[in-house]
């Protein structure tokens, strides 16, 4: 799979997902919802390949059906009464539609998050925190090193203990608990013991002698600037559009909206371009690559 957007600067990646997930949560207009869902879905296919179509549908469909059915059971707002429930409460068309819309919103946000997990690696998180304060990024980086090591060592100790007859996975419950407590206590000793040496290694390499700088492997290039400018321009237009009612849609008590106008189409288009930005970048890079290749 190509993954061009991933090579962009972490700040671009982060801002994109922050905006996109934010927009997806706020804009409840069915057209916006559809744009966000299709954008997230197609990007996840671009990122993770065809097999993700199946896995996406597997969690998306049940969520939508469940929420569309459950919402009217608890939400009785709306004026279009279809029938009365056994409890005597009304079943309204608005609540069914709202349930479906909310479900679409939830699944597209989940889908965006899964995409962002692919892009925002631990490196990038560490870097972004490093922008705030260098020591925070060091703490994060050390945690990312420590936790897997701790788990590995715990497993190794448990295995070795099993070899001399102290089994955590079988035998009498009381013995298992005793062994588990022992392993945990020695693991604390182990952590402290190792921390002393790590501290030595840090001091030996000048930790604490001067104000730290935060080195990073990322460079803010021209394409990052272009992406950022595009995002800001589109984002501003979308937010303005939302403020001036271009995406107005109300579910209760009666479904009301502003209709489709040239203005609202322009806002939706901006939103669509925004939602498809990573996909556009991927496609564009592939095209450019092909063009360069054909020249050779």
């Amino acid at each position, binding site marked *: 799979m190509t993954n061009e957007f991933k090579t962009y600067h972490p700040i671009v990646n982060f801002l994109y997902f922050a905006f996109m997930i934010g927009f997806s949560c706020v804009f409840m207009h069915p057209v916006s919802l559809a744009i966000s869902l299709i954008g997230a879905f197609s990007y996840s296919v671009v990122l993770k390949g065809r097999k993700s179509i199946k896995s996406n549908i597997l969690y998306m469909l049940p969520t939508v059906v469940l929420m569309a059915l459950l919402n009217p059971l608890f939400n009785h707002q709306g004026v279009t009464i279809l029938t009365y429930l056994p409890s005597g409460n009304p079943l309204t068309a608005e609540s069914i539609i709202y349930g479906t819309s909310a479900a679409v919103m939830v699944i597209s946000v989940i889908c965006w998050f899964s995409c962002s997990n692919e892009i925002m690696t631990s490196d990038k998180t560490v870097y972004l925190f490093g922008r705030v304060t260098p020591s925070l990024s060091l703490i994060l980086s050390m945690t990312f090193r420590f936790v897997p090591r701790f788990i590995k060592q715990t497993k190794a100790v448990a295995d070795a203990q099993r070899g*001399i007859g102290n089994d955590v996975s079988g035998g009498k419950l009381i013995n298992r608990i005793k062994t588990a407590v022992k392993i945990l206590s020695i693991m604390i000793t182990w952590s402290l013991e190792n921390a002393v040496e790590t501290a030595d*290694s840090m001091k030996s390499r*000048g*930790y604490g002698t001067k104000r730290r*700088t935060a080195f990073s492997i990322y460079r803010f290039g021209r394409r990052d600037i272009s992406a950022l400018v595009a995002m800001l321009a589109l984002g501003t237009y979308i937010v303005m559009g939302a403020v001036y009612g271009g995406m107005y849609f109300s579910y209760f008590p009666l479904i009301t909206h502003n209709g489709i106008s040239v203005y609202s189409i322009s806002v939706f288009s901006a939103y669509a371009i925004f939602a498809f930005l990573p996909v556009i970048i991927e496609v564009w890079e592939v095209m450019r690559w092909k063009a360069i290749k054909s020249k050779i």
Partner: protein
Amino acid sequence: MESYKIENLSFTYPNSEKKALCDISLAVERGEFICLCGKSGCGKTTLLRLLKTTLSPFGKADGKVYFNGMELGAVPDIEQASKIGFVMQDVENQIVTDKVWHELAFGLESLGVPTNEIRTRVSEMAEFFGITDWFYKKVSDLSGGEKQLLNLASVMVMNPDVLILDEPTSQLDPISASEFLRTVEKINRELATTVILSEHRLEEAFVMADRVVVMDNGEIIADDTPKNVGKILKKNNHDMVSALPTPLRVADVLTVREGRIWLEEFSKTNTVDEGRIFRVRETNSCKPCIEAKDVWFRYEKNKPDVIKGLSLKINKGEIYAILGGNGTGKTTALSLIGGINRPYGGKVKVSGKVGMLPQNPQLLFTEKTVLDDLRQMKADDGVLSQMIEVCELKNVLNQHPYDLSGGEAQRAALAKVLLTQPEILLLDEPTKGLDAHFKDKLADVLRELTKNGVTVVMVSHDVEFCAKYSDHCSMFFDGSITATATPRELFKNNTFYTTSANRMAKTVIPDAILAEDIILACGGGE
């Protein structure tokens, strides 16, 4: 000019009567390569740590240490951090961050170097070490040898004047260890960095070093060129002789090549009597207690086979060694014998209770003192005190198991395993990190056990140890055994994978596999 000048340095740890260092005087010239050796606990680490203020242990120090002509205490921390590079023994604990690039940059970040300069220096260093491919890797994806090279690179990136290494290869396998030492040599030769290296793998270090310093009981007992140090130790018949490289033990030369030339010359004018080598060791019985037939194993369904058609037969009461390189499946084979993993094809028949000593003995300890740890095994007092006797643990009973030295921890863990009264003892790299002296002690314990009918199976990289002490050796390659024989038969027929004594004596005394053999054949002492 001297890099370091140490004058009458003595050091005593708190709560200790004995001096850890006693009146040490030593001068290290700029660009010199010094090898510091001595038995575990002789004060090497203490001395090395006193050469950098932030690492100096607490205690009472007398005497003076000068760094580049300035008293060490007066050299500011920030200068010491960059000018004195220190690589420690433990491979894992030295690594601070999770990514290779971050680790390389750590020192420079601490010194407040601007990002652009860090980029240049890190890339320069990665190129020098040939580790550019790893740059984006996670530290946890590197092998042990690679991790130690990373530690070295992250120190070198600060461009130190002096590089101090405290037993850096003790946790590495032989191949990674010699790669590591070659890199240190390259740094010394090409960057003119002063190197002070403490080692117990002397075979390679002696060839590289300009000078060897031998310590014993906190004192310097020899300080001379490698060849002369060999002469001095042999003249005094010191314990350390058994740790010397084979060519140096037999003659006064350093390499196998020189040793062979010497031996060929020697045999022209003197009689070499192969008959003096004690040929066959007697084994207790020929009753097989472990049998494996055409065993196949893989860890996961979609992964390749690790064990491919392994067959072996191990007799009761013998020491059986499985030798082979990294990643050939030796440890996996051991886990199959131990019943931790089950083969998907073939059969493993084991008659007797199995005890297993893991590669890292620390994994077995869970209590606050060694004694508590042993008591936990619920043995009678009689058995317990006997075990303490056999494993020589009397002096360490009240210590925390994590405070023991490599050899002591190994023996304490062994005692713990033995208290389960196994009839078959499985050992994974038992000599890793042990010096020559502790290896001999371990061998004594193992010998004692086989006398009582315990079968010992070990997997190891340590050719010399297996040659010296095992009854049968197997060569392991690509998931199965390629050859099995007594060590003498096996190594006699090998050209590369054999002891250095054998390589040296091949043309004159093909049967010799140990330095002792050559000495005997040449008419030396019993």
